């Protein structure tokens, strides 16, 4: 039975936390835990989610959980898994929730090690495109033109000057059994992918776009809409890597306006016509490549 608003459990395993209203990351964790259930063992490195979720004695994560060293999310996951296996524990899922920096920057080495070992655990990157917990600084998944507090947008430099690292493909290049991209704007797709990851015999990775109202400069009630819009305008994509093959889950005949998507967020307020042209060119090149090389 497909997971959707009707079929998903009403049980909440992440609530009462202190995240900002409209937090995409908190929504991603809440949804994922509905699929994984109360025998999930959660690993969340120092980031917004561990900050709002574990301030003793206030413990709003209602499953077993650990805050690992920032760089060590995947390695702690592997250790839990090995310890659980050695003691013969059954019916549990080890899952990590790291942000874009905790995945693609400081967490990359340990993640690579875990995929290399093919440990049976689920690594979920919630991507809000900057280091939000420290007050919005650039990561390697920050998009071109985003204003952050260490890539300021002025007259001379219009925010971050680099484009997003192709993290999903870096993970796939390890030969991982299952990897996927998702967005909180497409929750049913995300839920289905978490379920697939849960049933994967080996390491799985889900990269979920998770808008951050505070860092993106959007209202708190449009998180899901913005997450959907990111996919519809082609600046994000829904795809899977499985059995050695890439597959585009969604291949829009026509993109909605990327310019409108960017203009709706104050983080891109410094972009000019040349910047929009660059963003569109990169988008179109990426899609030409994906459409050429990936299954649809």
């Amino acid at each position, binding site marked *: 039975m497909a997971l959707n608003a009707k079929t998903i459990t009403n049980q909440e395993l992440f609530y009462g936390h202190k995240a900002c209203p409209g937090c995409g990351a908190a929504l991603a964790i809440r949804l994922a835990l509905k699929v994984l259930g*109360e*025998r999930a*063992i959660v*690993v969340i490195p120092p980031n917004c989610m*561990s*900050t709002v979720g*574990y*301030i*003793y*004695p206030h*413990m709003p*994560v*209602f*499953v*077993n*959980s*650990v*805050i*690992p*060293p920032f*760089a*060590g999310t*995947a*390695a*702690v*996951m*592997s*250790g*839990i*898994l*090995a*310890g*659980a*296996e*050695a*003691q013969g*524990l059954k019916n*549990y899922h080890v899952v990590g929730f790291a942000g874009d920096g905790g995945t693609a920057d400081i967490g990359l*080495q*340990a993640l*690579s*090690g875990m995929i*290399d*070992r093919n440990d049976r655990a689920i690594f979920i990157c919630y991507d809000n495109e900057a280091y939000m917990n420290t007050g919005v600084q650039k990561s390697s998944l920050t998009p071109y033109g985003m204003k952050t507090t260490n890539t300021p947008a002025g007259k001379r430099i219009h925010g971050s000057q680099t484009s997003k690292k192709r993290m999903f493909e870096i993970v796939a290049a390890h030969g991982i059994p299952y990897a996927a991209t998702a967005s909180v704007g497409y929750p049913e797709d995300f839920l289905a992918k978490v379920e697939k990851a849960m049933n994967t015999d080996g390491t799985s990775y889900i990269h979920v776009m998770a808008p951050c109202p505070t860092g993106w400069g959007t209202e708190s009630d449009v998180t899901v809409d913005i997450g959907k819009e990111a996919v519809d305008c082609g600046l994000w994509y829904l795809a899977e890597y499985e059995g050695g093959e890439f597959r585009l889950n969604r291949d829009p005949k026509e993109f909605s306006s990327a310019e409108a998507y960017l203009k709706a967020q104050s983080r891109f307020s410094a972009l000019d016509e040349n910047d929009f042209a660059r963003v569109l060119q990169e988008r179109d090149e990426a899609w030409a490549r994906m459409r050429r090389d990936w299954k649809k």
Partner: protein
Amino acid sequence: MSGKLFVSGDEAVALAVRQAKPHVIAAYPITPQTIVVERLSDFVEDGSLESQYLYVESEHSAMCACLGASAIGARAFTATSSQGLLYMVEGLHYASGSRFPIVMMNANRSLAAPWSIYNDQRDSLSELECGWIQLYAENAQEAYDTILQAYRIAEDPAVMLPVMVNLDGFVLTHTYELIQMAEQEKVDAYIPYRNFCNKLDLEKPKATCITAGPPYNMEFRYQQHQATLRAAETIRAADREFNEHFGRSYGGLLETYRCEDADAVLVTLGSVAGTARCVVDAYREAGKKVGLLKIRCMRPFPAEETAAALKGAKAVGVLEKDVSFGFEGVVHTNVNSALKEWNVTVPTANYVGGLGGRSISKADIAGIFDGLLSGSLNASETAFVNLRRDICGA
């Protein structure tokens, strides 16, 4: 397996770890620790050790994997050295702060730069503040025995702290000695696995390595400090019980050797204690009253016992393989603090030796004793033993 074996210090550690049966081993190779991880992977391959062996991509991940394993109640082991120890430092604090009873072997090796793969103790002694119990072995037999004692200490419900077992790189890790193996049944009886009270539990979920703000943080630290102090009694008990099971003991936190009526006592730790023992014997035969105080445990520091052991001496020398640049050797600082705390007034002098693998000979130690016995002690300056003055402008 019991009986005697002719093995290196590293192999002695691996053999002890096999008998301790950790659920999880995660380690990354580094000279001169490598033989430990090689032997342990051999044991997993040949089926004589049923551990989950994790091939990690760094020491940081080795420690992180041990954190995860220990968090869910698994007995964990890792081994490292020098740069590797420093790379896992952040995890060391997680382990002690979250009270994970991980056991780690550290092959004492110098730190870059300048690079050196050879022995000194600047790696572990720079980590006295990370909350781990720190034990130092003198020879391969003590290394083997101390690994077994380390699990007894770490997993004691009154302690629940990680333990670092230090072996001098090459001098001990790569030197072959005859060791007496323990019978497996006795090892099982000495260190039975018991559930950790703080472990994650699928039936009763918990969070660990949590955040504690200003209203709670100090209380966690106070309890951690108390547990580390309490560990001293557990270390003594572990050594006593070890003697009952296996017929060997090491004095608990420290060992005094011919100190009773000694005019001059040398305080040191690790493998050089063996060399010092020979010099003490020779001097005693010549009628000179000298003794050795071997510190086996740097944390918790045996302050009262150290002060008591040095009380009757006329001069004390502290020989150590590290220096806190701009001050003195850290062992010297600790010894002096203990003397002050227990109102023992005795002149002390600091001897820094063996840095980056420089040998410390019997003649070097004899020179120290001669200085201590002469009564012309220069306590104000840290002496560098066997320094090549001609090439460094000294």
